[in-house]
């Protein structure tokens, strides 16, 4: 008899396709998990960015993972019911971003202020003597920065 926690455990093994050190659970994109009376697994997800090209891929990965578990049915839905924010990243998710060389986004309260993009701690040397080079990076969720102490360019997972 499978319980909801089994689903959460299984989804911890489904990684972000672009940042393979971070699970979808820790990324905060899983918004709802339930098992119906008819033994159907029902999962709801929310996209990080509305135009994220990895959305369908992630949804399919979740679908496949659940299908391996022996439910009588699997339903995965992606919607905007709960808008994703970088504050949804777990502490473990933040550490996993750093493992991939990305500076984790700062937590913020209330409306996002973009001066958060300045003085981002460098993931290479820890210095805060850094500057924003561009709010847009190689994927929608990353910004480009430069560390004036160690001279390395680095990326941050954007606060949103």
């Amino acid at each position: 008899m499978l319980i909801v926690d089994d689903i959460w455990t299984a989804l911890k093994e489904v990684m972000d396709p672009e940042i393979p050190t971070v699970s979808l659970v820790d990324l905060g994109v899983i918004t709802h998990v339930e098992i119906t009376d008819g033994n159907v697994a029902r999962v709801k997800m929310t996209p990080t960015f509305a135009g994220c090209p990895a959305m369908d891929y992630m949804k399919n990965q979740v679908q496949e993972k659940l299908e391996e578990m022996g439910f009588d049915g699997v339903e995965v839905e992606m919607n905007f019911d709960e808008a994703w924010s970088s504050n949804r990243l777990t502490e473990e998710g933040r550490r996993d971003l750093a493992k991939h060389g990305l500076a984790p986004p700062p937590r913020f309260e209330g409306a996002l202020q973009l001066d958060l993009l300045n003085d981002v701690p460098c993931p290479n040397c820890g210095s805060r003597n850094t500057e924003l080079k561009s709010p847009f990076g190689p994927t929608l969720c990353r910004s480009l920065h430069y560390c004036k102490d160690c001279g390395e360019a680095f990326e941050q997972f954007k606060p949103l």
Partner: protein
Amino acid sequence: MDNGRPANGVAPKVASALKTFLYRIADDELIIAHRNSEWTGLGPILEEDIAFSSIAQDKLGHSLAIYSILHEVFGEEDPDTIAFTRSEKDFTCCHLVELPIGDYAFSLVRHLLFDLAEQLRFEMLENSLFEPLAKVARKVKGEIKYHLFHAVTWVTQLGAKGNEESKARTQTALNEAFPLALGIFEPGDHDDILKGEGIFEGEETLKERWLTALTSIVEEADLTLPDVQSVEPAYGGRKGYHTEHLQPLLDEMAEVFRIDPGAEW
């Protein structure tokens, strides 16, 4: 439907007004996305190439979200069919988004004028009583914040912090783009209905907020905003009358779809 109301619970008159409104927003997003994507590989510096390409991707996501509402709530065609098979006269985007990318100053100024209006529009829609749209508004406002931040940074850089040439070219672009941008707010019959239903406060209110915010951004950038009373707004787009630039764009955009409607990659 025994009670005379359709399955989505929206009265026919309101549904029609909402559809008009949603198509206007989504068509703008789709067409500006395509134009922004034309900077891919051509940006003046690598970071700008990436910025315009990223913004294009976001805008495409926003148009998808709104076409999805049209499909799921109002039974319109699926988003790909809506995007790739309609003819020019069925599009209700404004002329501002149709124009070719021009020089970098024009694209940047258009980006500023458009994204400022977007940000203010979605702020107004966050509390819309039409919940599917309010959800999209709450989702995309953070993304648009980045777009506007990018636009303001560069317009200020080229204006107040630039040299004589960069400032002159940015001013020229502003003079050219301003009347086009006023076309964003082209009035329509749907406006009063949506206002009455608590769905959207109206284009006129949005335009006033936009002008106020724009005036201070333009001053900060040491540029001059043309007098709103003395320019002719570029209307017509919302009624399906477009510039000669839209149809070629649609032809190019739908090229793959026409060859293979089910193509995946």
